[in-house]
């Protein structure tokens, strides 16, 4: 079952990528793409976000070591890898959420449309308005469903008369409107886990970001709720760039256009650092896993 889905998904991905190539006119053919990480990276022409030699530290501890990674526009990029390999940490450097953790610091460049978001003139608040985030545990505000969605637009200073429209639009977009339209004044906390997570996605969409980061958005959900969120992600990828961290390999295979594989590497002092092992089209990562392992062992990526 999973396998069949996976194959179907691969075909879809293949198609969408080829269509993308035609539009972009990159001229790269599929076999060339399969040749390795450098070529796959090069394919991401005009990346919406581009990490260049990014290291993330917590105090003296280097949690993520030297990552180069472009994020393609209107695609889903998945981060997979074992626990403690720095996936979430890296994701949180995309919208400067790491700023909130005392002692956390990012080295290297995190370019958003060519601008380093850790640059001296950049306002973290402005970054977060463009790069939204959905968290592992659904975290709706203890306010009404309406107020949950309206929070972001209100902070942005959107006028009151637009609010009903924004709320309906965002909830519709997050495939939640039909379930909640009659109880908009009830607390967002009263919804089920899956609905809460879609509420959080709707809340994120309401401020109309460019990129949506999802940190294991289905980790606390049952399979049905997970399937709904995954469908939603595919739909949203038509308009938004999505970066998702997941522990679930199948999930990455089902939804992601590209996949980055991270692992924790132990250095000479017995300290673990997160490293990017391989970044490629999802199909290549999953259909030729042996190659990535082999390359990893032979040190080409290590």
């Amino acid at each position, binding site marked *: 079952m999973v396998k069949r889905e996976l194959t179907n998904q691969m075909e879809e991905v293949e198609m969408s990528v080829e269509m993308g190539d035609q539009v972009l006119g990159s001229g790269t053919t599929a076999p060339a793409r399969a040749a390795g990480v450098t070529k796959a990276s090069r394919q991401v022409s005009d990346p919406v976000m581009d990490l260049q030699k990014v290291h993330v530290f917590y105090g003296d501890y280097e949690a993520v070591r030297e990552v180069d990674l472009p994020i393609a526009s209107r695609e889903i990029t998945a981060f997979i890898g074992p626990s403690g390999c720095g996936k979430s940490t890296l994701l949180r450097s995309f*919208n400067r*959420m790491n700023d*909130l953790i*005392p002692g956390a610091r990012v080295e290297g460049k995190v370019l958003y449309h060519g601008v380093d978001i850790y640059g001296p003139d950049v306002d973290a*608040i*402005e970054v*977060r*308005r463009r790069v*939204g*985030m959905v*968290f592992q*545990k659904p*975290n*709706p*505000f*203890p*306010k009404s469903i309406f107020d949950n969605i309206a*929070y*972001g637009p209100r*902070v*942005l200073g959107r006028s009151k008369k637009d609010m009903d429209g924004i709320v309906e639009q965002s909830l519709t977009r997050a495939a939640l409107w039909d379930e909640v339209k009659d109880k908009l004044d009830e*607390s967002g*906390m009263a919804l089920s886990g899956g609905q809460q997570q879609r509420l*959080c996605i709707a*809340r*994120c969409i309401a*401020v109309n970001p460019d990129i949506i980061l999802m940190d294991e958005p289905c980790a606390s959900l049952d399979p049905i709720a997970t399937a709904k969120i995954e469908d939603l992600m595919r739909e949203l990828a038509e308009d938004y760039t999505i970066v998702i961290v997941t522990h679930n390999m199948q999930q990455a295979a089902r939804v992601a256009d590209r996949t980055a594989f991270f692992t924790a590497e132990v250095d000479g002092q017995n300290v673990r650092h997160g490293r990017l092992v391989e970044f490629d089209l999802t199909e290549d990562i999953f259909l030729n896993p042996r190659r990535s392992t082999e390359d990893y062992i032979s040190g080409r990526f290590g």
Partner: protein
Amino acid sequence: MPAFEFFQTVPITDFLFGTEWAPLFADPEFGVLPLVSGTLVITGIACLVALPIGLLLTAMYLSEYAADKTRRTLKPILEILAGIPTVIFGFFALEFVTAVLLKNIWPQTEVFNALSAGLVMGVMIIPTVASLSEDAMSAVPRGLREGAYALGSSRRQVTLKVVVPAALSGIVAAFVLGVSRAIGETMIVAVAAGLQPNLSLNVFEGMQTMTSFIAAAGSGDQPTGSIGYQTIFAVGALLFLMTLVMNLFSIRMVRKYREVYE
């Protein structure tokens, strides 16, 4: 029970609505309003001091703005302040706030006045209010803050629109506890506000509160069973009733406005 005996002698309407309080005089008057107004005026001043400083500034700063190290240093100091004996606050009000500050700014200030007692009482309850509301705010899950920050809110917006509403029940509880301490406070008012019952809103005049009457009358030589003795219990019962009503009211307010996050 002496309170019941009191109301057999004095009609309850005379007690509640009378404007003269002189129960121990040869020609006694039992209107409790001057004591109630004195209590409310002084407590009100204390709230005006403690609400903005204790709640809005101190608690919000400690919970949302201060670095971890600062908070761990400041909070114990704040809590030590809560342990200062109130008689010391009382003399601070009389000898410093009245004599040095108020007399210079407003020379007509009486030696015993409601303003200095209220101000100092406000300072006294700041630690209680600030420390408890900071606890309530720190207990708000990190996920809520992160959700708000991720939508591009500033720190001020996160604090005022997410953290404070979510912690509201704890904050109100902290404030009610502070106000209850203020209403029940005796030493500061007895020392700094004087013992003259005074139905007035002029805060530069001396006033007597319900508690300071009880203290003064109780330490005098009222024979057991006399009307003066019973008066103490009547005032005490009213004081109890007032705090009870205030607590019930605040519980209702909390039920209505709080945001349950669990």
